[in-house]
C-alpha cells in the first residue's frame, strides 16, 4: 500500500509539472515567432475556409438590410485619400479618364471607362460592412456585378484568382541603403473565382445613393459581402486573372496578407 501511494504521488507530481509547463508555454508569445507554429496556424486557415464554404456554398447571400438600418455616417477606414499626383488629376477631372483594365488569364482583355461600367446592369444592396478590427457599419452599395465583367473577359481555364490593383500607396516613398528612391507598395487584394463570381460581389460606384466619395474608394471599390473589409479594395484600377499570386508583391495575395493577415477573410 505504501508503495502504491508513493507511485501515485510520483505520477501526480510529474503530471502536475507537465501540466504547469504546458500552461506556461501557452502564455509564451515567443511561440508566435516560430515558423513551424505559423505554418500550422496557416494550415488551419485552409481548414476554416473549406468548412465555411461547405456551409455557405457558392452562392449563399450575405444578409441584406433595410434603408432604416443604414448608418448615419459610414465609417471610412484604411486609405482616406491616395493623394498621389495621378490620383489628384483624376479627382480634378471627375474621374472622366479613369479606366478599369481587365487582363491576365483572359481570352478578351478589357479596358472599361466609368461610363461603360455604369452602363452595365447594376445591383444595389444594403449590407453590413465588417471590419477585421471588430466594428460593423451598414450601407447601401450600387455597382456592377463582377461576374458580368468576368463573363465579358472570358477567363481561361487555368485562371483561379482575381487580383485587384489599387491607386493608393501604403506609406511614403523612401530612400534605400544605396540612396535609390523606393516607391511604397500599393494596395492590392485578391479573391478566388468562387467569391469573385458571387452575386453580391460588385464593383461599387455608389454609396447610399451618392457617387462614391474619395474616402470610400472613388471612383470604384470592390464589395465582397461575405468577406471582411480588408478584402474589399478601394480605388480599383486594374484587375488581373492569375493562376497563383506567388509572384505578386509579397506573394500572399494582398497588402495585408503580406503583413501577416489571413488570405481567407470570411471569418
Amino acid at each position: 500500500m505504501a508503495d502504491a501511494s508513493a507511485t501515485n504521488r510520483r505520477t501526480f507530481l510529474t503530471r502536475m509539472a507537465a501540466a504547469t509547463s504546458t500552461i506556461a508555454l501557452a502564455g509564451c508569445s515567443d511561440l508566435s515567432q516560430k515558423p513551424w507554429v505559423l505554418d500550422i496556424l496557416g494550415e488551419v486557415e485552409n481548414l476554416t475556409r473549406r468548412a465555411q464554404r461547405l456551409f455557405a456554398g457558392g452562392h449563399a447571400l450575405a444578409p441584406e438590410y433595410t434603408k432604416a438600418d443604414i448608418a448615419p455616417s459610414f465609417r471610412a477606414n484604411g486609405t482616406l485619400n491616395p493623394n498621389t499626383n495621378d490620383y489628384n488629376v483624376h479627382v480634378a477631372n471627375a474621374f472622366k479618364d479613369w479606366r478599369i483594365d481587365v487582363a491576365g488569364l483572359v481570352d478578351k482583355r478589357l479596358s472599361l471607362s466609368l461610363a461603360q461600367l455604369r452602363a452595365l446592369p447594376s445591383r444595389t444592396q444594403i449590407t453590413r460592412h465588417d471590419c477585421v478590427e471588430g466594428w460593423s457599419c451598414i450601407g447601401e452599395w450600387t455597382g456592377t456585378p463582377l461576374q458580368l465583367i468576368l463573363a465579358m473577359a472570358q477567363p481561361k481555364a487555368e485562371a483561379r484568382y482575381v487580383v485587384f490593383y489599387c491607386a493608393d500607396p501604403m506609406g511614403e516613398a523612401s530612400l534605400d541603403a544605396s540612396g535609390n528612391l523606393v516607391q511604397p507598395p500599393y494596395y492590392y487584394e485578391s479573391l478566388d473565382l468562387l467569391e469573385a463570381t458571387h452575386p453580391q460581389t460588385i464593383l461599387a460606384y455608389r454609396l447610399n445613393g451618392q457617387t462614391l466619395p474619395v474616402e470610400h474608394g472613388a471612383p470604384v471599390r470592390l464589395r465582397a459581402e461575405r468577406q471582411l473589409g480588408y478584402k474589399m479594395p478601394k480605388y480599383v484600377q486594374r484587375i488581373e486573372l492569375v493562376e497563383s499570386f506567388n509572384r505578386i508583391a509579397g506573394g500572399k495575395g494582398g497588402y495585408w496578407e503580406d503583413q501577416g493577415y489571413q488570405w481567407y477573410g470570411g471569418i
Partner: protein
Amino acid sequence: MSETTQSVTQGNLGDRLRAQRDALVNRLRAAVGFAPREPRPPTYLFYRHTIPVRALHWLNAIILLIMLMSGLQIFNAHPALYWGNGSSFDRPFVSLTAEGTQEDFHGVTEIGPWKFNTDGWLGASDDSGVKSVRGFPEWATLPAASPNLALGRLWHFAFAWLLVANGLAYFAYVFTSGHFKQELLPTKSDIAHLPREIVMHARLRFPKGEAAKHYNGIQRMTYFVVIFVLGPLIVLTGFTMSPTMDAAFPFLPRVFGGRQSARTIHFIVAFSFVAFFIVHIVMVILSGTWNNLRSMITGRYAIETEKPHG
C-alpha cells in the same frame, strides 16, 4: 460508472497537505468569525473522475486560456462594445480608451455613463516597457505585444477548432456514459435544496462521506450552465461575427440581435468563463486543494468516513 473504492491510509505527504489545508480553512473561518473545525476523521480513496473527464478537463483549461488571451488581443484592435448590427461609434456602451496628450495620457474605462481611471490596467499600460494605448495589458494578451491583430486571429481561430472538438468529445462522452444524467443534470431536489446548499457553501461546509462522491446541487447547476449554456453560446456568437457564417446561417445575427450584439455577448460570456474560473479555483482551494487536484489528475479523491456534523 466504475466505482473502485480503495481503502488506504494516507501517506505522509497527504497528511501534511491535509493539515495545511485545514489550517487555511481554519484561518478563513476565524476571519469570518467561525470556530475552528474539529480534526478530520480518517479517509479512503474513491475513484471519482474517469480518464476522459480528466483529459478533456485539462485540455479544455489550456484551450480556454489561449482562446481568452488571443481573444483579448483581437479585442484590443477595437476595444469597444456595441449593441445591434452596426457600431454606434460615438456611444459604445463599453470602451477602453486613453485620455490626455501624446506624451501624457492615462487609461480610462467607460461603461455607459460611467468613467473610471484604469491606468496601467485597461486603456493604457506598458507594452515592452513603453507606456502605450492598448485595451487589455500585455500580460493578458496573446501575443503580448499589441496591436498584433493578425497573430491574435491566427491563434484564436486555430484553437477555436480545438475548443469545439474538445467540447464535442466531452458531449459524446457524457451522453453515452450516463455521466450527464448522473452528475450534470440538475435534479428537482437540487433546486429544492439550493438555499440550504448555498448557506452550507458560504459557511465553507462541503459534503462529506457518500455525498462527496457525486457533484452537489450547486456544482450540477453551475456545470450545467457553463457547459450547456455558456459553451454553445460562445461558439454561436463567435460564428455570428464571421460574415461568411452569417451568409450560411442568416438566423444567427437575428437570434443575437445583430453582429455587434453577438460580439458583446461573446465578450460577456468570455468573462463569465473567467468568473467561473475564479470561483472554481477558490472552491478547489477551500474544499481541499490537493485532494481536488489529485482527483482531477489520478482520478482518486479522498473521502472522509462519515460523521455527523458537530
